[in-house]
């Protein structure tokens, strides 16, 4: 086992989230908003998709030293080792059996030929790719489909029989069905892709011949880590400062307002850029601390989350301050002070629980914008380490080939598809969370 910093934090976060969900499930007051989310089909389907992404990200967060080489790999890497290890020489299109560019080859008779060489792995089992390829792909896809669809269907039907007719469930019947279908299609999609991937590069290969599907899958973790760890770092700052400023006013308020106006006035991209430059220098100076490339890249990812967290707490802080200002004038807060309740108890008992919906809504809303921000930052080279798999880095790499004819389109398409699915699911889920928890939207 090797525990990277972000791994540890991801699992801390996972633990925190499970505690939070157990609390929410057991609290009767939460049943109404939860049931509202449970009744929303889009909300539940997007949650399912999100959870699938999270599961992939978690598998990619358990690292260990691989047995055959002394590399640090994750469980996901181990699972996907056929795809991971079957690299080609350079670019190849999706489902191709040949490289993308022509090369000088020597035929058996010794004469040089300018032709497309066969791939080392992709479609290597075919004798004559020209004629066989299409049917073989179809064949392999159907096998994958059947292999995954049948068990998935059986398990889902059995589960459905057991749970679907329970009364008083949080999830409505209609959304439960939609969720079951989503799970089914995800499983089938994964099964088919896995089956195909052992014979072909489904989404092609990139410049150094790495499988693009593998890259895009590995990028999931980066996106999730940035979307969640940043929040973890920003939340305590925003909550503590926001509530204190609103509750105590006076010089506390003035100081905190000064602090966040100052931070806010610096364009955030520049602040991130400046901080990342500083981090780069720090890492360059203390090279000996980072035992391997992956540890180094991980450190940079963590720093990026921290910097993003420090630059992004101001918005939520301002909202919480405004809400606290409103709450402290509420009659129940006044009644509590009239009853002699101490101020810090009022803070914890009356103020904090009543601003938590704002925190929750802003966390889910921020997630998607952070995932999008990662791509932009990586593009400006102030994002994650260039060796880290991330959608931003994929786009960045592919962009340089934009001028090439014919176009190398698969890296862009792959990152687009993955990012779009994750962000869309996050946005849709955020919408239903907001609808359920925002008191202004109730009724």
């Amino acid at each position: 086992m090797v525990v990277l910093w972000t791994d540890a934090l991801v699992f801390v976060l996972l633990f925190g989230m499970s505690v939070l969900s157990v609390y929410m499930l057991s609290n009767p007051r939460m049943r109404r908003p939860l049931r509202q989310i449970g009744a929303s089909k889009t909300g539940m389907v997007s949650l399912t998709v999100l959870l699938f992404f999270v599961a992939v990200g978690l598998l990619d967060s358990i690292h260990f030293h691989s047995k055959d080489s002394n590399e640090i790999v994750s469980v996901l890497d181990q699972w996907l080792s056929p795809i991971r290890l079957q690299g080609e020489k350079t670019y190849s299109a999706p489902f191709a059996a040949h490289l993308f560019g022509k090369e000088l080859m020597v035929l058996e008779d010794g004469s040089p030929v300018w032709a497309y060489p066969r791939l080392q792995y992709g479609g290597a089992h075919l004798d004559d790719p020209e004629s066989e390829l299409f049917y073989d792909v179809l064949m392999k896809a159907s096998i994958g489909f059947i292999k995954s669809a049948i068990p998935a269907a059986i398990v889902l039907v059995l589960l459905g029989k057991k749970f679907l007719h329970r009364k008083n469930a949080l999830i409505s019947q209609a959304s439960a069905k939609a969720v079951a279908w989503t799970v089914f299609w995800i499983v089938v999609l994964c099964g088919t892709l896995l089956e195909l991937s052992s014979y072909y590069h489904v989404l092609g290969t990139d410049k150094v011949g790495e499988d693009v599907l593998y890259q895009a899958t590995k990028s999931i973790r980066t996106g999730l880590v940035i979307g969640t760890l940043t929040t973890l770092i920003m939340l305590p700052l925003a909550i503590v400062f926001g509530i204190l400023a609103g509750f105590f006013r006076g010089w506390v308020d003035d100081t905190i307002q000064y602090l966040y106006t100052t931070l806010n006035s610096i364009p955030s991209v520049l602040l991130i850029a400046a901080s990342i430059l500083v981090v780069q220098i720090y890492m360059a100076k203390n090279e000996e601390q980072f035992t391997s490339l992956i540890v180094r890249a991980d450190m940079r990812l963590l720093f990026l989350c921290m910097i993003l967290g420090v630059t992004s707490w101001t918005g939520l802080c301002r909202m919480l301050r405004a809400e606290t200002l409103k709450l402290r004038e509420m009659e129940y807060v006044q009644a509590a002070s009239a009853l002699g309740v101490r101020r810090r108890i009022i803070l914890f008992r009356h103020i904090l629980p009543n601003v938590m919906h704002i925190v929750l809504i802003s966390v889910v809303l921020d997630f998607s914008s952070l995932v999008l921000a990662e791509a932009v930052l990586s593009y400006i080279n102030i994002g994650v380490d260039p060796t880290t798999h991330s959608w931003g880095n994929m786009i960045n790499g592919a962009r340089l080939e934009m001028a090439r004819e014919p176009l190398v389109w698969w890296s862009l398409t792959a990152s687009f598809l993955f990012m779009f699915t994750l962000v869309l699911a996050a946005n849709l889920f955020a919408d239903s969370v907001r609808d359920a928890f925002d008191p202004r939207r109730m009724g």
Partner: protein
Amino acid sequence: MNRSPVLEVKNLTVKFGVDNPVVDAIGFEVHAGETFAIVGESGSGKSITALSILRLLPVNASVVADEIKLNGVDLLRKAEYELCKIRGRRVALIFQDPMSSLNPVMTVGEQIAEVLKLHFSMTRQVIRQRVIELMKRVEIPEPEKRVGEYPHQLSGGQRQRVMIAIALAGEPDLLIADEPTTALDVTIQAQILALLKAIQQKTGMSLWLISHDLALVSTMADRIAVMQKGKIVETGLSASIFQNPTHPYTRKLLNALPSMESCLGHQRKQKSSLLKIDDFKVYYPIRKGIFKRVVGHVRAVDGVGFEIERGKTLALVGESGCGKTTLGKALLNLIPAYSGQVIMDGMALHKLTGETLRRKRADIQIVFQDPFSSMNPRMLVSEIIDEGIRALYPEVGTVERQARVVELLERVDLPPDSAHRYPHEFSGGQRQRICIARALAVQPKMIVCDEPTSALDVSVQSQIIELLKDLQKEQGVSYLFITHDLGVVAEIADEVAVMYRGKIVEHGTVDQVLHHPKNAYTRDLLAAVPRLQTSVLR
């Protein structure tokens, strides 16, 4: 009396989504030139009825009726664009809160002129003239100047006058007034009602009044319909309804009505003072200039003094903005006082700070006006009630505390299982009971009741008053009863203090103040209160 109907409604039902109908198969008519009133408590569907006639309800409402005829024309058959020609022209509406009902970023002149532009073809000059004429008619002083002002620059009464001017601009046949004076002070209310009456007499239009206030309606209406839970339970001439109400609900409403005649006559022998305040002032600083120096003060409470006796009630009466609520909160130290003495049981409360102040807080408690915002929505009722015990009597154990909560709930006539429910599961009156239980939990010597009944319906109002009176008898707690409603004062108070602009202008026993007022302001206040007209004959 039998004039032709302006508006005929038959079998009107309004539903929101799949819920039970809010308005349930009602029918009524409004005759030309008469004042017709619909009376009912909150949630009875009376406002919805008015809005549904003109199709002003949100899209998710479904309105079904046999007919809604205006001057013989069925409105149900009219397309939306045809209705636009009727709204504001044939039928005009006035709403409850004039502040929110006027567009805050348009001048009042523009808002009146808009109706004229829409329904008449007039030149710019004529419109301007007409706007000023209308403002004169609703008795707004200096109309030439006011025309260019924004709603927030006017007083509440003037804003409602502007609303009336907007309504009159279309020269409508029917004016619907939906609780036109509920948001206003009682003296302003009287003026607005008088204005409406005068205008109606001059123009001969019909007036459809919607109100929860039986007394007010009795001074205005020719005919009355009483509405309960979406149904009209009784219709009739005003006089007959007030003299011989047939439906039990109408009788219940009439009985619940507080009347100023019923004051507590009994005089006590010995005096035992509980709280004495002297020269009490609450000022808010006005800051100006670059460095925000304090350049003056808003004198919210300006040198007030009175005494409250043990087990007695002092009612503090005044209109909005007179400083009565500020005074109440400052007594509890929720707002810092500027100067003055507060002596309770011989102890100078105004000198206490920190931990001693906190311990002493058990002595005075408060019950607020709005039963919805005065309880933390995320706490159980038991937590809400025992919060004070936990804070001020930490030595009380869990078991004993729980027993105490149950006991308190019983005391305020709530079932013991309420303890494990959340505030939103209760009605307004029940919540107010919980608030009273919360105040009682720390065994206070005095409770400041800040308009505890103003947000409640009449029938619930009287129940809460009864409860407060019972509790006083049993536990000997004193009340400082802050209210704008002189009717309630007679029901509960021993003494009355009338507050005006931060000062107490008259103080005495209920009988003295309500029946033999000395101060001119008190007399105005009393004269403005609508009373049941039991012998209306026209």
